[in-house]
C-alpha cells in the first residue's frame, strides 16, 4: 500500500512548554458507578494535535474517562475543559468530539456512503458538500469502490476503515478511538497503526486513543498515560515510559523487565561518584548510576530490561557488582530475539535477551550451560514506588 507522505514530522512537545494551554483538561475527575470508583480524582492535560494514549488493563477506568469526554457519562466530581470551556451538561450530540467505537458500531441498514454521510446530514450540510466530503473520506481510507456496500458485505479491516472515515467526516476537534484496532490481525494492525499516525499528522487533529495493547500505544503516541484502578500512574512519552518508568507497576506493565527487590546499602558520595546507588538484593550487589531520593536502608526495586543484560559463558573482569551467575533454565526463541531465562543457585530467575544477529541455528549457549549475566551501571534503574 502506498503511503501518502504528509508534512515532514517535527519534534513535538507542547507539554514541556509552561506557556502552552492544554486543549483538553480533565480536572480532579471522579466517576463512581454505585460503590465502584472507576476514575479517582484524576487530573490530566492533553494538547492540541497530540496523539495521546490511555493505556491500562481492563477496568482501569480508561474507557470511562474517554466516554466522559464524549458525553456518554457525566463525571461525579470535577470538570472537563475543552479549549477552556467547561463541557458539563453538553449532550454527546452537541460535542465537537467524534468517537470510533470498539465494535465500530456501523449502521447495518445503511451503505458505506450513508454511514459516512450520517454525521454530516445532522449538521444540515448542503447535499453537494456532503457528497464531496464522503468521496474525500472514501478516498482517504481507500474504499472508493465499496461505497455502495452494506457493512456486512465488508471484511473486518474494511469495516474498521469505514468506522474511521465516519468518525473523521465531521472534522472533529478531537477524535476518540476506543480500542480501534483490537479486532484486526497483527499484520493489518501494524499497518493501520502507521496509517493512523499519518492521518493524524496530515489532518492535524487531536487523537485520544484507549488501548490495553502497550505495543500499539508505544507505536502511535506522542504521550501515554498509564492507568491503574482509576488513577494515572505515569504520563510520559513512549521512550520515557519504557526507559524510565516511575514505579514497579509501570515498569512491569510495559514490556518485559527483571525486577529485583532489595535495599539500599550506599548512596552517592560513599561510592565516590555522585548520583550512584548501591543495592543489596539477597546477596546480589547492584550499582546504578541514578539520582535517587531514597536513602540508605530504604526498600527499593532494581529493574532492568532483558535486552540490556549481556549473557556470556565467561566470567566478567569485575565481579564486585552487576553480575548474576546461573544455569540456562529456559530459552524462548522469538525469531528476532532469543530470551534466556537463567536460574541462580538459590533459585532466582533473571531474563536476558539477545538479538539473533547471525543465522546460526545452533546457538553457542544452550540449556544447562552455566552463564554470567552482566549489565552496565546505567542500564537499569531504581524504583522506589
Amino acid at each position, binding site marked *: 500500500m502506498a503511503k501518502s507522505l504528509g508534512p515532514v514530522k517535527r519534534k513535538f512537545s507542547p507539554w514541556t512548554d509552561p506557556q502552552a494551554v492544554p486543549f483538553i483538561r480533565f480536572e480532579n475527575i471522579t466517576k463512581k458507578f454505585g460503590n465502584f470508583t472507576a476514575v479517582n480524582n484524576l487530573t490530566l492535560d492533553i494538547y492540541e494535535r497530540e496523539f495521546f494514549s490511555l493505556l491500562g488493563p481492563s477496568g482501569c477506568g480508561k474507557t470511562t474517562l474517554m466516554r466522559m469526554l464524549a*458525553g456518554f457519562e457525566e463525571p461525579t466530581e470535577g470538570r472537563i475543559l475543552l479549549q477552556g470551556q467547561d463541557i458539563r451538561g453538553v*449532550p454527546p450530540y452537541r*460535542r465537537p468530539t467524534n468517537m470510533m467505537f470498539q465494535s465500530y458500531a456501523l*449502521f*447495518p441498514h445503511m451503505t458505506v456512503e450513508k454511514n459516512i454521510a450520517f454525521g454530516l446530514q445532522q449538521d444540515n450540510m448542503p447535499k453537494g458538500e456532503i457528497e464531496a466530503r464522503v468521496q474525500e473520506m472514501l478516498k482517504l481510507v481507500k474504499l472508493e469502490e465499496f461505497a455502495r456496500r452494506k457493512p*456486512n458485505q465488508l471484511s473486518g479491516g474494511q469495516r474498521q476503515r469505514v468506522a474511521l472515515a465516519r468518525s473523521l467526516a465531521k472534522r472533529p476537534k478531537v477524535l476518540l478511538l476506543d480500542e480501534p484496532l483490537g479486532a484486526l490481525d497483527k499484520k493489518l494492525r501494524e499497518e493501520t497503526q502507521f496509517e493512523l499516525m499519518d492521518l493524524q499528522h496530515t489532518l492535524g487533529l487531536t487523537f485520544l486513543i484507549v488501548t490495553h495493547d502497550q505495543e500499539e500505544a508505544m507505536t502511535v503516541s506522542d504521550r501515554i498515560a498509564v492507568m491503574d484502578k482509576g488513577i494515572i500512574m505515569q504520563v510520559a512519552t513512549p521512550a520515557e515510559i519504557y526507559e524510565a518508568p516511575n514505579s514497579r507497576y509501570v515498569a512491569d506493565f510495559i514490556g518485559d523487565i527483571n525486577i529485583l527487590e532489595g535495599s539500599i546499602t550506599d548512596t552517592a558520595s560513599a561510592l565516590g561518584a555522585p548520583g550512584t546507588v548501591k543495592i543489596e538484593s539477597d546477596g546480589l550487589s547492584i550499582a546504578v548510576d541514578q539520582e535517587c531520593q531514597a536513602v540508605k536502608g530504604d526498600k527499593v526495586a532494581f529493574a532492568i530490561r532483558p535486552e540490556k543484560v549481556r549473557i556470556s559463558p565467561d566470567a566478567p573482569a569485575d565481579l564486585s557488582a552487576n553480575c548474576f551467575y546461573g544455569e540456562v533454565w529456559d530459552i524462548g526463541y522469538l525469531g528476532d530475539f532469543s530470551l534466556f531465562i537463567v536460574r541462580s543457585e538459590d533459585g532466582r530467575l533473571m531474563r536476558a535477551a539477545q538479538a539473533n544477529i547471525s543465522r546460526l541455528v545452533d546457538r553457542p549457549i544452550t540449556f544447562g550451560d552455566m552463564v554470567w549475566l552482566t549489565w552496565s551501571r546505567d542500564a537499569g534503574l531504581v524504583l522506589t514506588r
Partner: protein
Amino acid sequence: MKSSRFDVTVLTLGFAFLYIPIIILIVYSFNASRLVTVWGGFSLHWYTAMWSNQGLMDAAWVTARVGVLSATLGTILGTLAALSLTRFTRFPGRMLFSGMIYAPLVMPEVITGLSMLLLFVALNVDRGFWTVTIAHTTFTMCYVAIVVQSRLLTFDRSLEEAALDLGCPPVKTFFKITLPLIFPAVIAGWMLAFTLSLDDLVIASFNTGPGATTLPIKIYSQVRLGVTPEINAICTILIALVTVGVICASLSTKRAEVKRIRDEHLAVRGAT
C-alpha cells in the same frame, strides 16, 4: 443414522394427532352434503354460500378491524414497554413492572376477560367494538413486549451512541437507527398480536356488545345451533391464511439467511 421403525411410528402418530382434525375439517368444507359427517361428493357450494352469509361476513369484517387496530395499538405500547424495560435498568419498581408485563401470559383468559368487563362496567362504558379492541390491546401488548424485548437485549447500544456522537438527537436516533433495526421484531410482534386477536373467543365474548360480534364468537354461536359446512369453509380459509403467512415469514427468513451468507463470502473475497 438409520431411523428405526419405532421412530417412524411415533412421528406418524404425532403428526396424525396434530393434523387429522384439521384435515377432516378441510375435506368436509368441500362436501356437497348438508350433513357434516356424511360425504356427498365434491362441491364449492359452501364457499359461495359463505360469501352470501351476511352475519358471517360482518363478523369477519369486525374481527379484521379489531385485529388490525388492537395489534397496532398493542405493538406501539408493547414496544415502548420493552424499551423501558431494557433501557432503564435501575428504576424503582422495575422488577414489579417486568413481572407484571409477563402476568397476562399465564393469566387464565377467563380472568382477563372478566376483569376487563368489570372495569368497563365500573366506568359505565357501553360494550362494543371499542371495548373488544381495548381488551385485545391489553392482552396482546405483553406478547409484543416480550418479542421486542428479546431483540433489544441483543441490540448493540453503541449503535445509538454512535448516532448521538455524530450529532443526532435522541428522538431522531430512535427513528433513524433503533426502530429500523428492531423493525423485524416489531413486525413479528404485530403479526403475533394480530393472530392472537383473530382467534380469541373468551376475552372477546366477555367484552363484546351489540354489533361487535367477532368471527370466533359467531362461529361458536353457530356451532351451538349445529355445525354447518359453511363454518368448515370459513375455517379452511382461516387456515389457508395462516399457512400462507407462516410460509411467507419462513421464506423471507431463509432468504435473509442466504443473503447474509452470500454477503460474507463477498466480504472475504473483497478482503483479499
